[in-house]
């Protein structure tokens, strides 16, 4: 069996050019390598499918697996962990850990996705903390890899004057990036929000994690448009997870999410490993060749509508938690809260 470095080299070459390899062969090889070197993964995968014949047979690993503090999901010796990103979590919740042997594949995937998907090559200004202030955030590392400049200080405060200064000084198109929640905070700060230069873009990600905010994509994009003067067709949604190494992007209001040739997705029927028919809703599972150090197949908790070989992201439904007798009450409250604007 090939070594980590040998397989990594093959995948890097494949990311560079699709003609340099075969997705199916590479992912089966990576999966066998991961099973060989990670007992947790081996035990789980073999309880479902001992010998996958195609990439679709590889069982997607639940994110719960990344929350084990005693044993890690790693395909290399523990002492060789060089970086770790943590999942976000509410107070008291166990956070998942995604460990890396190195960040070669991770960073290659970020750069190549941006190029392959023809995303705008503009300076990126980030409504986030910097990597030194938040070293365990995969999002911040991604933005840093793309050359982002960071506007939130280590105590969590947005530097408004710096934002205004950067925009005024440069006065050429840029990308303002951040979580959806960070944008909402910016819009609701009551402070003067500078209009972005013409032909600028916004990249939003991450939904409203850790808050009770819920706002439709339409309303949110209108807020961006009104506050920053960025047309809706210049708004990018980035979708990924801490447990992955690659990203998906959609542009504008009704776009599907696009990934690159080293990632594939399946939308599964709940309770089974069968894919839902086209245009139906199910659970999104992601196969990511850049995840060589952990698991190349991940089961998300996200709802998605299958669109051929890709998907339309619907996200998580906050109302999916067990509510006992609360169904009607929630309906009624939503009217009280949001029905009389």
């Amino acid at each position: 069996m090939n070594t980590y470095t040998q397989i990594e080299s093959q995948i890097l070459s494949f990311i560079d050019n699709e003609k340099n390899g075969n997705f199916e062969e590479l992912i089966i090889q990576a999966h066998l390598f991961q099973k060989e070197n990670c007992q947790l993964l081996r035990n789980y995968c073999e309880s479902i499918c001992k010998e996958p014949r195609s990439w679709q047979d590889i069982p997607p690993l639940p994110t719960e697996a990344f929350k084990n503090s005693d044993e890690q999901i790693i395909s290399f010796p523990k002492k060789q962990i060089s970086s770790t990103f943590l999942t976000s979590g509410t107070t008291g919740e166990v956070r998942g850990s995604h460990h890396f042997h190195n960040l070669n594949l991770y960073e290659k995937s970020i750069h190549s996705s941006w190029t392959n998907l023809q995303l705008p090559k503009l300076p990126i200004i980030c409504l986030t903390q910097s990597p030194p202030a938040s070293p365990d955030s995969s999002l911040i590392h991604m933005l840093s890899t793309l050359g982002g400049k960071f506007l939130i200080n280590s105590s969590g405060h947005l530097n408004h004057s710096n934002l205004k200064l950067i925009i005024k000084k440069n006065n050429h198109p840029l990308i303002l990036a951040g979580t959806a929640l960070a944008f909402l905070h910016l819009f609701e700060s009551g402070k003067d929000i500078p209009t972005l230069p013409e032909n600028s873009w916004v990249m939003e990600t991450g939904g409203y994690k850790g808050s009770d905010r819920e706002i439709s994509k339409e309303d949110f994009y209108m807020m961006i448009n009104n506050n920053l003067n960025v047309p809706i067709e210049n708004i990018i949604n980035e979708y990924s997870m801490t447990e992955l190494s690659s990203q998906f992007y959609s542009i504008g209001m009704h776009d599907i999410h696009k990934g690159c040739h080293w990632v594939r997705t399946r939308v599964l029927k709940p309770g089974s490993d069968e894919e839902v028919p086209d245009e139906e809703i199910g659970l999104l599972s992601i196969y990511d060749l850049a995840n060589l150090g952990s698991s190349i197949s991940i089961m998300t908790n996200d709802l998605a509508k299958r669109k051929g070989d890709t998907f339309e992201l619907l996200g998580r439904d906050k109302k999916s938690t067990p509510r006992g007798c609360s169904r009607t009450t929630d309906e009624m409250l939503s009217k009280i809260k949001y029905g009389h604007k």
Partner: protein
Amino acid sequence: MDTNKRATALSKAIGTQVETLLELVAKELGHRDSLDRFISYGDIYTRAHPISPILHIVSGNTPAAAIQTLTRGLLIGAFNQIKLPSEGIQEVDDFVEKLPSELKSLIEITRSRQTSSEWLQSARAVIVFGSDETVSEIESKLFPSQIFIPHNHKVSIAVIDSDGNKEAANLAALDITKYDQQGCLSPHDIYVHPKEQPRSFAAKLADALSELNTKYPPTGRTIEENIKIDDLRRSYSFRSSNDTSVQIWKSDSNTDWTVVYEEDPQFAASPLGRFVFVKPLPNSLNDALNINKEHLSTIALYPFSIKRAETLSLCGATRICPLGSSQDPSIFWHHDGLQTLAPLVHWTDAG
């Protein structure tokens, strides 16, 4: 209509004895005629009047609770406004259809959020089935003079001390299957005495659920409910493949039913939808129930005895019932530990 006539009409609609309903009035209000005339009360006389109108905000996943709360309001002679979920509740429509016109005239039904929001302002009593958060929010909309009866989120468990007749798994399966485990009364966790081999019990329960599922498969589950079940199933499948203290049984190719055996006795919350945990009964059940005591509703017990119920009552449950009857509370039950008719009347004294 007097109480006797209302009880007679209601008894036909819900299939119970008139005497049972009159006895409920007597137990809650001191005398079966309390709502019709002055009755002796210490050294004075007193009579009850219904607090009216009552707004019932009910849930679609527990039709029995909706009918029960409406029955109580009608029994005392109040005017009842009921907010149904947008998809309606067929059982409530069927119930109302069986009533005489005099009782029908005491009911107003809506599925409209707008209408129920208006009713909320004018109701003299509001009975709500909902989560802690949403119940609190409705409470914040009320005036101090309005009677508020919340039935917020609760969880239930079962305790099996011994299973000499080998029927406990079938009874537990009934409790889990009925109403697809929705509401607050069906057990999330089943605690089995170690001498009854809890892991083997879990396997038997899986068989019983599978058998019931062929006759009564779940209907009307949302994609979100199925996804919650799928998510937890995959987490426990991962754990069971790496930890011999955990084992999972589940229906094939769908989310119909799931049994998880887990040696850790700490209470685990089910996503409902026939998803149940089986755990060894620990020496201190109190310690294992790490939920707030006010959230514990029912303990379904097998075999049932009042003596054993006395010890379990210390866990904070508001109801201890025989296994197999979790989802069918008696008309006499103190819903969430509260009287059911007494809070809905006010009194006039004489003498």
